[in-house]
Structure formats: structure tokens, C-alpha cells
């Protein structure tokens, strides 16, 4: 990487930052990135709205579920932070019955909406295709039958 501080390029600092980034990569705390074919970043590759919408609809259907699994609760340093983090993690488990019930309801709604978006997309695509075909037929008919005055 290249870095400029207050208008001056700093090669040494750039190397220091690259080394720091390498330590992050090797440190085992990397974010959990999805595979490229499942990531939202795939949408950047779309070259038309049609392609974007098709990819979006596919990605949306993969994301309907609310994740209720255990997760790392961020903890502040010191005994109070440790205690607060432990209580939060415990509460998540104790209240699992409640939040899973709500997650089920939310997942159902999400899946129904995602399906509705896909229905709508397919219907519009079919209708647009049909209209295009009819316009082409009309243009062809007008072209071959013209000139009779």
C-alpha cells in the first residue's frame, strides 16, 4: 500500500502498516467472509439492472433465516466487563426458548416476502418478454404491409 501523511509519502509507515495487516490475517480473528458466489459483493459485477435483480433475488433467498446461534459477546476489560459479558451470554442461552419462537415467526415472514419478490420479478420478466415479442410482430407487420396508400 501507499500512504501519505500531511502531504508526504511515508514508505516506512506503509511497510509497518502492511506488517500490521499481515498480523491481523494470521491472528485468527478475521471476519467471516462468505464465499464470493454468496457475498453481496457479487452484486458489483452486475452489468445491468436485470442481472443485478436476478442475483439480488438469489442472494435474498439465502438470507431469510435469522441466526440464533451463540456468538461472541464483546467484553470490556476488567472484572465488571467480564461479568457483564458472562451475564449477557447466559441470558442469550436462558432466553433461547423465547427468541427462537420469535425468530421462527420472523423467518417465516422473511421467506414469504423473498418469495413474493421473486414471483414479482418473474412475472414482470414474462410480461416484458411478451410485450417485446408483440411489438416486434407489429413492427414486422407494419414493415411488410406498408406502402399501399
Amino acid at each position: 500500500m501507499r500512504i501519505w501523511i500531511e502531504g508526504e509519502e511515508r514508505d516506512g509507515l506503509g511497510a509497518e502498516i502492511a506488517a500490521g495487516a499481515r498480523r491481523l490475517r494470521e491472528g485468527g480473528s478475521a471476519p467471516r467472509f462468505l464465499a464470493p458466489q454468496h457475498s453481496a459483493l457479487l452484486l458489483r459485477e452486475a452489468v445491468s439492472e436485470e442481472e443485478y435483480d436476478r442475483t439480488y433475488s438469489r442472494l435474498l433467498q439465502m438470507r431469510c433465516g435469522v441466526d440464533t446461534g451463540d456468538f461472541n459477546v464483546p467484553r470490556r476489560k476488567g472484572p465488571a466487563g467480564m461479568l457483564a459479558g458472562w451475564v449477557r451470554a447466559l441470558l442469550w442461552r436462558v432466553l433461547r426458548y423465547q427468541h427462537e419462537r420469535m425468530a421462527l415467526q420472523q423467518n417465516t415472514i422473511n421467506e414469504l416476502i423473498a418469495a413474493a419478490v421473486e414471483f414479482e420479478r418473474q412475472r414482470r420478466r414474462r410480461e416484458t418478454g411478451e410485450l417485446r415479442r408483440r411489438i416486434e410482430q407489429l413492427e414486422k407487420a407494419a414493415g411488410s404491409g406498408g406502402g399501399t396508400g
Partner: protein
Amino acid sequence: MRRVDQILAGYAEGDAVSGIAVVIRDVLRRMGSSSEIFSDPERTAADRVAAGDWRPLGEYDGGRDDVLIYHYSSESPATDVFLGTRARRILVYHNITPAEWYRGYDDRIAGELAEARSRLPAAAGAADAVWAVSDYNAGELRRMTGVGEVRVWPPPLDTARLDVAPDAAEVEKLAGGLVNFLFVGRLVPNKCVEDLILAFAWYTRAINPHARLVLAGSGKAVPRYTAMLRMLAGELKLENVCFERFVSPSGLAACYRRARVFVTASRHEGYCLPLLEAMYAGVPVIARAAGGMPEAVGSAGILVDDFEAEELAVVMDKAARDGDLRRALLASGKARIAAETGRDLEKELGSLLAPFGVV
């Protein structure tokens, strides 16, 4: 006294080009000229309609002795008004985002941007003078149109807009002891906000989980792009990416008040006034060395290029925690702002408009 009016493609609160037009109008009026802003009613925001400080494009009727300034940034009926007027013409080039950035997200906007670029040579060729808001823009304009003389006039920082009391509720919302990284700008593809989200994912997972990325800017312009950003933040389980949408001046003041570092990874900017706004608010800035941003940053702030997301995360951490670096950045930012606020806008505009006989 000669009339010096301005035409814009659109007019809205918080829009950089609109803000510059307002400053120019106010300076011209102080200089004794009659000056109005004309905008396309279709693209004039409701807040401006209510304020009534503009007129519809169709009402522009400048004569031979008048001067018309056209802020060129996208395809608009304003181009026809500019080409058809009898008034003397000045074109101010604010840059046109290359259409490729919008393809797939909004094909209509992409088409408009391509059209704006194709009509630029005619508009520049018809102008009696051409200005640009940065050397970067001036260079691009010369390459695209072949015009010879382009005068560079960096956009002024409107400090009155920033000197407002911060929104107390927003200040409270952004509290909580988290390190706040702030981005200000519309959520549009060329600003590469996804690069900030990826860097923030590294920062919050591998460096400091007690942090927040605040994205202060409307996501309405390109909804598909905003949807992609929200999907990305969701899949990375980043609860602390805050989509603040459009913020009022007092909301913006609150964002700056709570920000530890201002950061942008934009790849295409004509200038980028929010960098100066952040410096004015005493917030260190990190920007990609792209477009006109090195000119806006000047000898203050951090510029980065050719970086991976985790490298930007390390730079963000350094800017947030390194006391010596922060002190140096704040001092250089203050000097940059002193130079900016010390500008004599009446003298600058007077010099630019002297060939038109405007005192």
C-alpha cells in the same frame, strides 16, 4: 448593474454543488450584483421548494449584458438553457461520474451520465470562460473537450452551515464509549462505501470490537447500491454499521462532534468538501488518494492508495489511537482550515469575473 445568475441541474440541501451556488450567489449579492439560482423543478428538493430561494429553469431570460454561470455535473435541461442563452456564459465543471460506476445499479442514471459527458464538449466550447473546482477536474476537462484555458477555483467551505448547535439526540445516540468512524456523503457506487465496511469488519473483529461506523448520507439516489451495502453489513454481522441516511445540519454537527476519525474510500471525487468540514470540526481525516481529494486534503490528513481492507483497518486504528499522529493531524488540519477560511471570496470571484465587466 450586470446580472450574474446561475443554473443547476438540481437544487437540494446538503448537495455540494447547490451549496457552492448559494455561496457564490451570496458573494455576488454582497458585491452588488443581482443574482438568482435557476434549477430544474423536477430535480429541486422539497426543502428548497419550500424555502423559495430559487426559480425554475424555464424562467431564465438573461440578455446580452448579463452573465450566466452553469454548474455542470450531469445531464439536464440546463444544458439547453446554457446553449440557447444570449447572456455571456461561464461553465463550471464539477466532474461527471463515469457511467460505468452506475451500470447494474441504475441504468437510467448511467445513461444520463454518459449523455452528460457526450454533451460536455459542446457546452464547454460555447462558454466564454471555463472554471473547474480542482486541478484534477481541469485536467479531465481539457482532455475531454480540448478547451485551452481552464481557471481553477476550489469550492469555498460554507462554515455558516457547520456553525450550528449539534442535535442533542444524535449526540446522545452516538455516545456509549465506542470509537466512531465517520463517512459523510451520498451512498453512491463511486464512493466505494463497501471498502469502508470491509475495513470496519477487520477493525471490529481483529482490533477493537467497541467501535461504530457511521454512514451519514442519503441512500435514496441509488437504492440498489444501498441495498448491496446493507446486505454486506448484514452478512458480516456488523451491528455497529449505522446507516444514518440524510442528516440535517444539526445532525451533521452531532456526527462530527462524536467522530474520532473521518474516513472515505471514494474512487471518484471532483474535490470532496466533507474532508474540509471534518477538519473544521477538528476530526482527523483519511482519504483515498484519488480524484480531487489530494487537493482537498492538502498538507493535512492521511491519504492512502493501493490498500487491502485489513491495511485500511490498521490505518484507521492508528489514526484513532496514536496520540502523536492525532496531534500532528489536528494541527495541520487547523492550518488548512485557517487558509480556507481566510480566503477573500469577493476578491477571488471579482478576479474571475473581471473579463465580464462585473465589479
